[in-house]
């Protein structure tokens, strides 16, 4: 096993090139709804069990199903009200199960990126050939159903192999959401093509805050605003990225959606915010900063 990911160089925020965003924005702000399908009775992966209880595990299954039946629409309307396009982290089987949701997102010009096939099919222990087959399925399914290329990747249920990043670069995926080491995009050290990480702000993820940390809805709003305020301040020196990763089964609950809408109102009410998508952040970074940052990292590597 590796002792570290071997995917990026050490690069302290205080000693790196300045990043700028369109129109002098300090923070590139994006929202990434995870639109997911969890199977009631998935096959077993030796790396992780899908459900704690023997089949059928009704409560967690149905809780997640709430997101597609009721929560998605509330979340979508709140985002649309504040002009926030989603960058959808998509379990692509949703294209077959619930194409109505895909159509609604497409109509609003949302981005689709990959979150694997199902959230109950993990990448753990896949051979390279199996992982390739899964990636090819995902890329073809998103193209067929939405007309979009897969530019971004968040591994299904955040499950990987050590081949994952190299394969993404080879398949022409432009950015990964799976690395949480930074508040700016960063080059990923791949051989078969360029790949960058775009901050996915895992600590802002509704699952992490509401389910794992067990915070209340109003407390979550306070956390999101505080995180934004700090990045907005720091963004005056060097451009920052803030993502809000969401799950419709959590944020779309009646007791949460109003508080979340207030957060969107607050953030989009600032002047120096670029309300954007993962794909647009990556494209801007490749166009304006990637070469410079790579050269700077190479120079530092040489100096060591």
């Amino acid at each position, binding site marked *: 096993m590796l002792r570290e990911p071997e995917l990026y160089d050490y690069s302290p925020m205080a000693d790196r090139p300045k990043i700028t965003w369109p129109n002098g924005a300090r923070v590139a702000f994006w929202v990434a709804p995870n639109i997911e399908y969890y199977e009631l009775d998935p096959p077993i992966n*030796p790396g992780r069990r899908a459900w704690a209880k023997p089949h059928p595990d009704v409560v967690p299954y149905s809780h997640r199903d709430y997101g597609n*039946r009721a929560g998605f629409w509330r979340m979508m309307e709140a985002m649309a009200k504040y002009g926030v396009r989603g960058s959808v982290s998509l379990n692509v089987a949703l294209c077959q199960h619930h194409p109505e949701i895909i159509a609604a997102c497409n109509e609003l010009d949302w981005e689709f990126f990959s979150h694997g096939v199902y959230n109950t099919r993990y990448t753990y222990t896949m051979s390279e050939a199996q992982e390739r087959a899964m990636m090819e399925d995902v890329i073809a399914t998103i193209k067929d159903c939405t007309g979009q290329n897969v530019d971004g990747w968040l591994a299904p249920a955040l499950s990987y192999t050590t081949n994952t990043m190299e394969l993404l670069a080879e398949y022409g995926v432009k950015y990964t959401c799976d690395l949480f080491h930074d508040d700016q995009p960063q080059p990923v050290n791949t051989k078969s093509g360029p790949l960058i990480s775009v901050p996915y702000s895992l600590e802002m993820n509704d699952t992490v805050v509401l389910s794992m940390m067990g915070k*209340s809805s109003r407390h979550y709003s306070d956390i999101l605003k505080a995180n934004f305020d700090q990045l907005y301040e720091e963004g005056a020196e060097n451009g920052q990225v803030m993502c809000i990763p969401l799950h419709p089964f959590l944020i779309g609950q009646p007791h949460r959606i109003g508080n979340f809408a207030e957060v969107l109102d607050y953030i989009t009410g600032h002047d120096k915010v670029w309300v954007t998508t993962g794909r647009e952040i990556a494209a801007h970074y490749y166009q304006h900063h990637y070469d410079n940052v790579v050269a700077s990292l190479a120079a530092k590597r040489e100096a060591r």
Partner: protein
Amino acid sequence: MTLSDDYLKYPKRGHGMDHDRYTWSQLHERPPVIWPNGARVALWVVTQLQWFPMDMKPAVPVPAAMARPYPDYWNYTLRDYGNRIGVFRIFKVLDKLGIRSSVAINSALAERYPYLVEQVNARDWELIANGLDMGHPHYGEMDRDEEAALIKGVLQSLRGLSGQKIRGWLSPIRSESMNTPDLVAAEGIEYLCDWANDDMPYAFETTAGGIHNMPHTMELDDQQILISLRHTEREYVDQLKDQFDCLYAEAASQGGRVMAINLNPWVTGQAYRIKALEEALAYITAHDGVWSATGGEILDAFKAQT
């Protein structure tokens, strides 16, 4: 470790659900439902009366089960506090505000404390079957004949003790086997409370005919919020109010909604929490267009127009 190539086969990858229990539909696309007197929100309070036997050995983990070495007086008596003290604090608040409740009860508790059944009947409230006791959750791989006998016994007991028809079923800890919906429907149950995927009743298929699933809340369960997530009483009240505000507003354009509140007397019936519950319920009932009803009454109104 190698993974079989079958792991990349997806036999249920098609339109709708990956099972046949209910059809796929989005809440906002369904025809609006109109509650009696044009109410916007049907308020469905479910009080849970449960028995946690001191020698319980559940087949799957049960939250709030005995957790200390035998004899666990600590946990046994703390749960029992709810059935002796807490429940009557809750009933007093509900009576004061004119709120009706469905009362989900373990049949073993109804047999031990028939006074509780009398109190429910005296208010003309509805009993929901909540299984045998909290030591007997239903679970995947449970023997079908054993489960069928258990369900038959629970319903015979509750129907005999209460004289009520018993139309609703809530599995202990909402845990089911693949057979549970079929077996309870075969015994005359009309609605399930286990699936947490909707804000409205919806049609649910069983081998014994169609029944419904009711939107019994998991997110707003007092045990979930106050015990599992350790929120403050203030946060509990805020969540109930926020939930109501959203559903009340939504009902103005999308038709009637159900707001379910799930109460465990050993949790909300504590002296220091009862005023928080009262504050939230008083806030809700102060609005026009709130219809307090039992699960059976809500289901009847729903079925009459779908």
